[in-house]
């Protein structure tokens, strides 16, 4: 147990199976065991603020930067990205299939009366979704409980719920590809630059939190950002699709 490090992570990376792929490689190389706690982004940051973790790996850039600014973390580094997509039932009641302009697609969904399931949990994904609605000039919360359904849950749970009620859902691609309960759902909207989804990695500040395993944590971050780690991220595939695209600054 000694020497092991604890990563506070979002559920999306954990649920995609990325860690199951990466961690054995890292451990083989360094002998350091990595334990992952996968929770909502907000809870992950809160846990890290309470010093309950060595590394933070989430996707909510403004919140991450605030965390570092307040002294919770040493520094934030871009790690990888993927993108968000909007999935919907095959019969596509709002007729958004194939659209690449996400604001237009949201506008159409809002106008059609078709259901839209939002995470509603203040997570990175949820924040992104709200920003997109704002850009589309729509305030869906006025329809909360109507066609706009805020599930207040993680990505997987929101997908289960959305699919259960036939609602459109915005999800990160990694979660979607590895999601097993797709039923008749398909990706309807993708490819807009606005759907970009950046992941960052932060070492929890050992000055503020003396219990932090700074050495191990830094080793893990260094490995992730190294050419080897980045290549490993790029190599991870589910259903023959790449889930994450490494973009650490070289």
């Amino acid at each position: 147990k000694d020497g092991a490090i604890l990563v506070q992570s979002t559920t999306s990376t954990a649920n995609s199976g990325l860690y199951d792929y990466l961690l054995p490689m890292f451990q083989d190389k360094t002998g350091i065991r990595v334990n992952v706690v996968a929770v909502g982004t907000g809870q992950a940051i809160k846990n890290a603020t309470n010093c309950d973790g060595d590394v933070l790996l989430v996707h909510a850039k403004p919140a991450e930067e605030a965390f570092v600014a307040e002294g919770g973390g040493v520094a934030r580094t871009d790690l990888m990205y993927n993108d968000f997509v909007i999935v919907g039932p095959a019969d596509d009641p709002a007729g958004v299939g194939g659209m690449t302009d996400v604001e237009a697609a949201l506008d159409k969904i809002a106008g059609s009366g078709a259901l839209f399931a939002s995470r509603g949990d203040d997570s990175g994904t949820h924040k992104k979704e709200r920003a997109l609605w704002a850009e589309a000039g729509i305030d869906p919360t006025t329809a909360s409980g109507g066609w706009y359904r805020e599930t207040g849950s993680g990505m997987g749970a929101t997908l289960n719920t959305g699919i259960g009620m036939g609602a459109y859902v915005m999800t990160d691609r990694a979660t979607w590809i590895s999601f097993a309960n797709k039923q008749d759902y398909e990706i309807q909207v993708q490819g807009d630059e606005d759907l970009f989804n950046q992941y960052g990695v932060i070492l929890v500040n050992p000055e503020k939190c003396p219990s932090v395993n700074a050495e191990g944590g830094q080793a893990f971050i260094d490995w992730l950002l190294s050419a080897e780690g980045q290549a490993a991220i790029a190599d991870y595939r589910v259903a023959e699709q790449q889930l994450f695209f490494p973009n650490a600054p070289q």
Partner: protein
Amino acid sequence: MQDFGEAVGMAVSLVASGDGDLIEIVLLSLRVSLTATALSCVVGLLLGAVLAVTRFRGRQAVIVAVNALMGLPPVVVGLLVYLHLSRAGPLGFLGLLYTPTAMIIAQTLLITPIVTALSRQVLEDLHSEYAEQFRSFCLSRGQIVRALLWDARYSLLTVALAGFGRAIAEVGAVIIVGGNIDHLTRVMTTAIALETSKGDLALALALGLVLMAIALAVNVVVQGVRLTAVRHAYA
């Protein structure tokens, strides 16, 4: 730990503010869990009584199974109900998924075994005293069951409260079949889970305190009824 102090203050001001959203959530929690408790008492007390008074081959096995079902995980109950009520499921046409009704169904399934197992034990203990006298009176099974339920009613209240406690505290099943949809199916526990995942632990705890206050209020009412009734009753 400052969160805890913060939570207490927040809980008080939440309650004091009479926030409309909170009231909505509280009322839905009560509606769902009280209905589920009532339904599972109807079924569970009867089943428990029948198990307590009848002797049949395999009875021990049934008792073991019911006791084991007290360990039914809420998530599993949620999934089973979800699979039945989902659009692809056999009862999908009812359109019940993500409604309070679905949540009531799930909680009822979850706590019926608890009420059954515990009331079986309570009633069997009482029946060990009454059994021969009842057989002498040649009572029908229905008469025996009714007499036991009536004479053990004060002890059974505690059983019902255990069921209610499980229901009102439960999150795994209602979040799957209810979806924690704001203004539709959000209850106290799913709201707490949400605030927790947001990292707003103080608010989550504050909601938890409110929930405990509600549970306490229900228990006070029940105890009040019990004491009033006992005053006119027969040891």
